[in-house]
Protein backbone atom coordinates (compact mmCIF):
# COMPACT_ATOMS: atom_id res chain seq x y z
CA UNK A 1 0.00 0.00 0.00
CA UNK A 2 1.42 3.36 -1.00
CA UNK A 3 0.29 5.89 1.57
CA UNK A 4 1.98 9.08 0.35
CA UNK A 5 3.50 9.98 3.69
CA UNK A 6 1.41 9.73 6.80
CA UNK A 7 -2.11 9.62 5.36
CA UNK A 8 -3.45 6.13 4.53
CA UNK A 9 -6.57 5.63 2.42
CA UNK A 10 -8.89 4.95 5.37
CA UNK A 11 -8.21 8.48 6.62
CA UNK A 12 -8.97 9.90 3.18
CA UNK A 13 -12.34 8.11 3.21
CA UNK A 14 -13.12 9.38 6.70
CA UNK A 15 -12.07 12.92 5.80
CA UNK A 16 -14.25 13.01 2.68
CA UNK A 17 -17.23 11.46 4.43
CA UNK A 18 -16.98 14.06 7.20
CA UNK A 19 -16.24 11.53 9.92
CA UNK A 20 -13.08 13.08 11.32
CA UNK A 21 -12.76 15.37 14.30
CA UNK A 22 -11.79 18.95 13.51
CA UNK A 23 -8.18 18.31 14.57
CA UNK A 24 -7.82 15.11 12.54
CA UNK A 25 -9.45 16.74 9.53
CA UNK A 26 -6.98 19.60 9.78
CA UNK A 27 -4.05 17.18 9.72
CA UNK A 28 -5.43 15.40 6.65
CA UNK A 29 -6.32 18.63 4.82
CA UNK A 30 -2.94 20.19 5.58
CA UNK A 31 -1.02 17.13 4.41
CA UNK A 32 -3.12 16.60 1.29
CA UNK A 33 -2.68 20.24 0.35
CA UNK A 34 0.87 19.33 -0.70
CA UNK A 35 0.00 16.05 -2.45
CA UNK A 36 -2.08 16.28 -5.65
CA UNK A 37 -2.45 12.49 -5.74
CA UNK A 38 -4.14 12.56 -2.35
CA UNK A 39 -6.37 15.43 -3.47
CA UNK A 40 -7.42 13.23 -6.37
CA UNK A 41 -8.32 10.49 -3.91
CA UNK A 42 -10.39 12.95 -1.85
CA UNK A 43 -12.18 14.05 -5.03
CA UNK A 44 -12.90 10.40 -5.90
CA UNK A 45 -14.22 9.73 -2.42
CA UNK A 46 -16.45 12.82 -2.45
CA UNK A 47 -17.77 11.68 -5.82
CA UNK A 48 -18.64 8.33 -4.26
CA UNK A 49 -20.39 10.20 -1.42
CA UNK A 50 -22.33 12.30 -3.93
CA UNK A 51 -23.39 9.27 -5.88
CA UNK A 52 -24.46 7.45 -2.71
CA UNK A 53 -26.51 10.52 -1.75
CA UNK A 54 -28.05 10.75 -5.23
CA UNK A 55 -28.96 7.06 -5.22
CA UNK A 56 -30.58 7.23 -1.77
CA UNK A 57 -34.25 6.37 -1.55
CA UNK A 58 -36.02 9.75 -1.75
CA UNK A 59 -37.38 10.78 1.64
CA UNK A 60 -40.97 12.07 1.87
CA UNK A 61 -41.00 15.81 1.33
CA UNK A 62 -43.71 18.34 1.92
CA UNK A 63 -45.44 19.24 -1.35
CA UNK A 64 -45.56 22.90 -0.46
CA UNK A 65 -41.92 23.10 0.53
CA UNK A 66 -40.70 24.34 -2.85
CA UNK A 67 -43.08 27.28 -2.75
CA UNK A 68 -42.06 27.96 0.85
CA UNK A 69 -38.44 27.86 -0.20
CA UNK A 70 -38.98 30.32 -3.05
CA UNK A 71 -40.81 32.66 -0.69
CA UNK A 72 -37.93 32.41 1.75
CA UNK A 73 -35.43 33.10 -1.06
CA UNK A 74 -37.44 36.11 -2.25
CA UNK A 75 -37.46 37.51 1.28
CA UNK A 76 -33.69 37.15 1.73
CA UNK A 77 -31.70 40.36 1.33
Amino acid sequence: MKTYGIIPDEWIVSYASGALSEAHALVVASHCHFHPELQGKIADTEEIGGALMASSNPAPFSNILFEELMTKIDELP
Partner: protein
Amino acid sequence: MDEPSTLSNISHGQLVPLIANDKNKEAFRILFYYFAPRLKSYLLNFNIGDQKAEDLTQEVMITLWHKAEKFDPEKAKLSTWLFRIARNKYIDQVRKQKYPELNVDDHVATMVAPEKTDQKLEKKQTSTLIQSAMEKLSLEQKVVIDLSFFKELSHSQIAQETGLPLGTVKTRIRTAFKALRVELGDKR
Protein backbone atom coordinates in the same frame (compact mmCIF):
# COMPACT_ATOMS: atom_id res chain seq x y z
CA MET B 1 -44.60 15.39 -6.57
CA ASP B 2 -44.74 15.82 -10.32
CA GLU B 3 -41.73 17.19 -12.09
CA PRO B 4 -42.38 19.91 -14.63
CA SER B 5 -41.75 18.73 -18.20
CA THR B 6 -39.98 21.81 -19.59
CA LEU B 7 -36.18 21.51 -19.47
CA SER B 8 -36.55 17.92 -18.29
CA ASN B 9 -34.31 16.61 -21.07
CA ILE B 10 -31.38 18.73 -19.96
CA SER B 11 -28.82 17.14 -17.64
CA HIS B 12 -28.77 18.33 -14.05
CA GLY B 13 -25.33 19.89 -14.46
CA GLN B 14 -26.52 21.89 -17.46
CA LEU B 15 -29.45 23.29 -15.50
CA VAL B 16 -27.17 25.00 -13.01
CA PRO B 17 -25.89 27.72 -15.42
CA LEU B 18 -29.54 28.62 -16.11
CA ILE B 19 -29.88 29.35 -12.41
CA ALA B 20 -26.55 31.17 -12.26
CA ASN B 21 -27.19 33.34 -15.30
CA ASP B 22 -30.97 33.78 -15.44
CA LYS B 23 -32.23 32.77 -11.99
CA ASN B 24 -34.38 30.26 -13.87
CA LYS B 25 -36.96 28.99 -11.37
CA GLU B 26 -38.05 26.04 -13.48
CA ALA B 27 -34.47 24.74 -13.65
CA PHE B 28 -34.26 25.16 -9.90
CA ARG B 29 -37.59 23.43 -9.40
CA ILE B 30 -36.39 20.38 -11.36
CA LEU B 31 -33.20 20.16 -9.30
CA PHE B 32 -35.15 20.70 -6.10
CA TYR B 33 -37.57 17.87 -6.81
CA TYR B 34 -34.75 15.49 -7.67
CA PHE B 35 -32.15 16.35 -5.05
CA ALA B 36 -34.08 17.66 -2.03
CA PRO B 37 -35.68 14.29 -1.11
CA ARG B 38 -32.32 12.55 -1.61
CA LEU B 39 -30.38 15.12 0.39
CA LYS B 40 -32.95 14.77 3.14
CA SER B 41 -32.60 11.00 3.00
CA TYR B 42 -28.80 11.33 3.33
CA LEU B 43 -29.14 13.76 6.25
CA LEU B 44 -31.74 11.62 8.04
CA ASN B 45 -29.02 8.98 8.49
CA PHE B 46 -27.46 11.22 11.12
CA ASN B 47 -30.48 10.89 13.42
CA ILE B 48 -31.15 14.62 13.45
CA GLY B 49 -34.91 14.32 13.05
CA ASP B 50 -37.22 15.09 10.17
CA GLN B 51 -37.46 18.85 10.72
CA LYS B 52 -33.71 19.44 11.04
CA ALA B 53 -33.07 17.30 7.95
CA GLU B 54 -35.59 19.40 5.98
CA ASP B 55 -34.12 22.64 7.31
CA LEU B 56 -30.59 21.64 6.29
CA THR B 57 -31.86 20.44 2.92
CA GLN B 58 -33.51 23.83 2.36
CA GLU B 59 -30.23 25.53 3.21
CA VAL B 60 -28.34 23.35 0.74
CA MET B 61 -30.84 24.24 -1.98
CA ILE B 62 -30.69 27.95 -1.09
CA THR B 63 -26.90 27.71 -1.45
CA LEU B 64 -27.42 26.19 -4.89
CA TRP B 65 -29.71 29.10 -5.83
CA HIS B 66 -27.34 31.80 -4.59
CA LYS B 67 -23.98 30.26 -5.49
CA ALA B 68 -24.83 28.43 -8.70
CA GLU B 69 -22.12 30.36 -10.53
CA LYS B 70 -19.51 28.65 -8.34
CA PHE B 71 -20.43 25.21 -9.70
CA ASP B 72 -18.15 24.14 -12.53
CA PRO B 73 -19.55 21.10 -14.39
CA GLU B 74 -16.14 20.53 -15.98
CA LYS B 75 -14.58 19.92 -12.57
CA ALA B 76 -17.22 18.18 -10.47
CA LYS B 77 -20.58 16.50 -10.71
CA LEU B 78 -23.57 18.29 -9.24
CA SER B 79 -24.22 15.39 -6.84
CA THR B 80 -20.63 15.71 -5.56
CA TRP B 81 -20.98 19.47 -5.12
CA LEU B 82 -24.28 19.16 -3.24
CA PHE B 83 -22.91 16.31 -1.12
CA ARG B 84 -20.03 18.56 0.01
CA ILE B 85 -22.41 21.41 0.87
CA ALA B 86 -24.74 19.11 2.84
CA ARG B 87 -21.83 17.45 4.66
CA ASN B 88 -20.31 20.80 5.61
CA LYS B 89 -23.62 22.29 6.76
CA TYR B 90 -24.29 19.24 8.92
CA ILE B 91 -20.81 19.42 10.50
CA ASP B 92 -21.06 23.18 10.96
CA GLN B 93 -24.58 23.37 12.37
CA VAL B 94 -25.10 20.05 14.13
CA ARG B 95 -21.61 19.11 15.26
CA LYS B 96 -20.66 22.79 15.69
CA GLN B 97 -17.30 22.23 14.05
CA LYS B 98 -15.45 23.96 11.27
CA TYR B 99 -14.33 21.32 8.80
CA PRO B 100 -11.15 22.31 6.98
CA GLU B 101 -11.97 21.96 3.31
CA LEU B 102 -9.58 21.48 0.41
CA ASN B 103 -10.45 22.58 -3.09
CA VAL B 104 -9.75 19.30 -4.83
CA ASP B 105 -11.67 19.92 -8.03
CA ASP B 106 -8.52 20.88 -9.91
CA HIS B 107 -7.16 17.41 -9.22
CA VAL B 108 -10.16 15.37 -10.22
CA ALA B 109 -8.59 13.79 -13.27
CA THR B 110 -6.83 10.97 -11.45
CA MET B 111 -9.07 8.26 -12.85
CA VAL B 112 -10.19 9.73 -16.14
CA ALA B 113 -9.68 12.93 -18.08
CA PRO B 114 -13.01 14.83 -18.12
CA GLU B 115 -12.64 15.82 -21.77
CA LYS B 116 -12.48 12.18 -22.79
CA THR B 117 -15.89 11.37 -21.44
CA ASP B 118 -19.42 12.09 -22.51
CA GLN B 119 -20.31 14.36 -19.61
CA LYS B 120 -24.07 14.02 -19.99
CA LEU B 121 -23.92 10.25 -20.26
CA GLU B 122 -21.45 10.08 -17.40
CA LYS B 123 -23.66 12.10 -15.07
CA LYS B 124 -26.66 9.95 -15.78
CA GLN B 125 -24.74 6.76 -15.14
CA THR B 126 -22.54 7.59 -12.19
CA SER B 127 -25.09 6.71 -9.53
CA THR B 128 -25.75 3.43 -11.29
CA LEU B 129 -22.02 2.74 -11.50
CA ILE B 130 -21.53 3.46 -7.83
CA GLN B 131 -24.47 1.26 -6.90
CA SER B 132 -23.14 -1.52 -9.08
CA ALA B 133 -19.66 -1.11 -7.59
CA MET B 134 -21.12 -1.11 -4.06
CA GLU B 135 -22.99 -4.33 -4.82
CA LYS B 136 -19.70 -5.97 -5.75
CA LEU B 137 -18.20 -5.19 -2.36
CA SER B 138 -18.26 -7.90 0.25
CA LEU B 139 -20.89 -7.41 2.95
CA GLU B 140 -18.11 -6.62 5.42
CA GLN B 141 -16.69 -3.90 3.15
CA LYS B 142 -20.12 -2.45 2.42
CA VAL B 143 -20.90 -2.13 6.14
CA VAL B 144 -17.82 0.00 6.86
CA ILE B 145 -18.42 2.24 3.83
CA ASP B 146 -22.07 2.73 4.85
CA LEU B 147 -21.06 3.56 8.42
CA SER B 148 -18.43 6.01 7.16
CA PHE B 149 -20.70 7.89 4.75
CA PHE B 150 -24.15 7.52 6.23
CA LYS B 151 -23.30 7.71 9.92
CA GLU B 152 -20.06 9.69 9.70
CA LEU B 153 -18.56 7.31 12.25
CA SER B 154 -14.87 7.43 13.03
CA HIS B 155 -12.76 4.28 12.76
CA SER B 156 -12.96 3.66 16.51
CA GLN B 157 -16.74 4.25 16.50
CA ILE B 158 -17.11 1.76 13.65
CA ALA B 159 -15.01 -0.72 15.63
CA GLN B 160 -17.32 -0.20 18.61
CA GLU B 161 -20.48 -0.47 16.48
CA THR B 162 -19.37 -3.65 14.71
CA GLY B 163 -17.33 -5.26 17.47
CA LEU B 164 -14.36 -5.53 15.11
CA PRO B 165 -10.75 -4.79 16.03
CA LEU B 166 -9.70 -1.28 14.98
CA GLY B 167 -7.07 -2.64 12.61
CA THR B 168 -9.68 -4.74 10.83
CA VAL B 169 -11.95 -1.72 10.40
CA LYS B 170 -9.13 0.26 8.81
CA THR B 171 -8.18 -2.61 6.53
CA ARG B 172 -11.79 -3.07 5.38
CA ILE B 173 -12.24 0.62 4.61
CA ARG B 174 -8.96 0.63 2.72
CA THR B 175 -9.76 -2.45 0.65
CA ALA B 176 -13.34 -1.28 -0.01
CA PHE B 177 -12.11 2.11 -1.20
CA LYS B 178 -9.51 0.48 -3.43
CA ALA B 179 -12.15 -1.85 -4.90
CA LEU B 180 -14.55 1.07 -5.56
CA ARG B 181 -11.86 3.12 -7.25
CA VAL B 182 -10.77 0.20 -9.41
CA GLU B 183 -14.36 -0.59 -10.35
CA LEU B 184 -15.18 3.03 -11.20
CA GLY B 185 -11.88 3.63 -12.94
CA ASP B 186 -12.38 0.59 -15.13
CA LYS B 187 -15.89 1.57 -16.15
CA ARG B 188 -15.49 5.30 -16.78
